[in-house]
């Protein structure tokens, strides 16, 4: 067992060795520019790119021509939201999204607000889910775009994408979904789910960092975007720049592996996740699941350990690499905006830990992590004045705290 045990797979994943192997020839041997039409170097690169396009499209049920290569999900989100807003501004200036989206979506939405667009930020329910009814109620005659994620990166909650997609198509509103965490983890089918645009990122599914795609629907409806990167007119004019062939090949391989191994892998990770959850909930009191028990990613577990602060908890099991929703661990002073949007109390947000189960996670690792976490929580609760109060029957929420900051 290699320590520390990596359990932060939502942040990033290691490159699968099969991906690395597929990429290697494209650095120094088949190094051509995929846009070079006059010689074999170019043709080889182009063929490799087209094969990758097919593999990526196959993972999400798209046509290869609907795949636009970008540097990752952040860029794809920028292109999708800004590109669509600018293209369809004449039609309307209203956009619907959600408070628990990734910062990349929220920051682009803020940017568009400054450019005169109006954005509705729906509040998810307490499990992090947005219902199609809530979306329907937010739609206006001037709504041009709905942007709601497939799976949340912190709590793993899945949105009812198909229902939202159907609604948007019925109303003639474009639907973008951030599938960064969903792709490769759960079945994604842009056709059946009525998705118009979707993004995914190589480094979240055992591919390289710095490569991703935007899926852009070609018909029913044909989605048009204003390019955010001008230049040679690559990628149907939507994203100029010489293609990053080795990374594209890697992303293609990663998507192929994800598609072939998804049924087995999602069942395996879910079983390990459930084991971790059972141990934590079986051996500790005052623990709360953040997310949705029914509609969730198979590889994600987000738990609040009441009366213990997240950063001190992470310090207590240094041999397990995880993330916390506590403010102390991040640059900002606010705890996770996702947990806030779900109306999880700030005290519990400070006590949250996100566990990720990955392709190479073993049962032994999960048991090791569970044992360490449980021991650390117990030890820190010995130190916790809040736990002491809870045991005395005083709910810390009812105390009038003299807050400093």
């Amino acid at each position, binding site marked *: 067992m290699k320590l520390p045990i990596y359990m932060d797979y939502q942040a990033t994943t290691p490159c699968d060795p099969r991906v690395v192997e597929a990429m290697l020839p494209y650095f120094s041997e088949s190094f051509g520019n995929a846009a070079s039409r006059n010689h074999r170097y170019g043709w080889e690169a182009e063929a490799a790119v087209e094969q990758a396009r097919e593999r990526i499209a196959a993972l999400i049920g798209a046509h290869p021509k609907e795949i636009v290569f970008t540097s990752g999900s952040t860029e794809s989100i920028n292109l999708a939201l800004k590109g669509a807003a600018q293209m369809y501004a004449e039609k309307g200036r209203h956009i619907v999204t959600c408070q628990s989206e990734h910062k990349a979506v929220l920051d682009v939405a803020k940017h568009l607000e400054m450019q005169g667009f109006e954005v509705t930020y729906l509040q998810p329910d307490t499990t992090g889910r947005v219902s199609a009814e809530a979306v329907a109620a937010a739609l206006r005659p001037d709504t041009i775009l709905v942007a709601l994620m497939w799976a949340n990166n912190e709590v793993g909650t899945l949105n009812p994408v198909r229902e939202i997609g159907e609604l948007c198509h019925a109303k003639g509103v474009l639907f973008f979904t951030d599938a960064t965490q969903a792709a490769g983890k759960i079945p994604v089918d842009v056709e059946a789910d009525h998705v118009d645009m979707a993004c995914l990122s190589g480094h979240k599914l055992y591919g390289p960092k710095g490569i991703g795609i935007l899926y852009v629907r070609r018909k029913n409806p044909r989605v048009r975007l204003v390019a955010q990167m001008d230049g040679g007119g690559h990628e149907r004019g939507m994203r100029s720049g010489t293609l990053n062939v080795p990374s594209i090949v890697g992303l293609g391989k990663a998507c192929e592996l994800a598609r072939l191994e998804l049924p087995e892998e999602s069942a395996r990770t879910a079983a390990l996740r459930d084991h971790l959850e059972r141990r934590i909930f079986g051996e500790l009191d005052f623990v709360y699941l953040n997310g949705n028990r029914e509609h969730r990613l198979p590889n994600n577990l987000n738990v609040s350990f009441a009366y213990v602060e997240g950063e001190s908890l992470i310090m207590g099991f240094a041999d397990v690499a995880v993330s916390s929703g506590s403010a102390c661990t991040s640059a900002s002073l606010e705890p996770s905006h996702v947990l806030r949007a779900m109306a999880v109390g*700030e005290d519990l947000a400070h006590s949250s830990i996100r566990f990720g189960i990955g392709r190479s996670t073993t049962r032994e690792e999960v048991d090791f992590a569970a044992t360490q976490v449980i021991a650390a929580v117990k030890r820190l609760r*010995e*130190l*916790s004045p*809040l736990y002491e109060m809870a045991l005395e029957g005083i709910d810390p929420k009812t105390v009038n705290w003299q807050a400093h900051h």
Partner: protein
Amino acid sequence: MAYSKKVIDHYQNPRNVGSLDKSAPTVGTGVVGAPECGDVMKLQIQVEGDRIVDAKFKTFGCGSAIASSSLATEWIKGKTLDEALAIQNTQIVEELSLPPVKIHCSVLAEDAIKAAVHDYKTKQALEAKS
């Protein structure tokens, strides 16, 4: 974020963890911070004459908050009330090599000392009256 050796030592081997009888007239209790801010410190002192003969703490907070309160109990044990009140957060920052984002932890520890002494003095004043 990397922690200093001293923070890690206090985190792993916190000194004077526990609780004193908060209803005892010789015990002063200070509780500062708030759960939604991510830290709460409870610091208690047992006083004989004007000297602190025992001190205990419990802290909900990050490693630096735990270390700051652990260190505070170590420092005030054996000190007079006035000496304890003279302890400043900057001394804690220096001793534990706290980075700027963790200075609030030391402020909280200083406040906890002051709150405990204040509580003790208030109790004594009430005793004197009755």
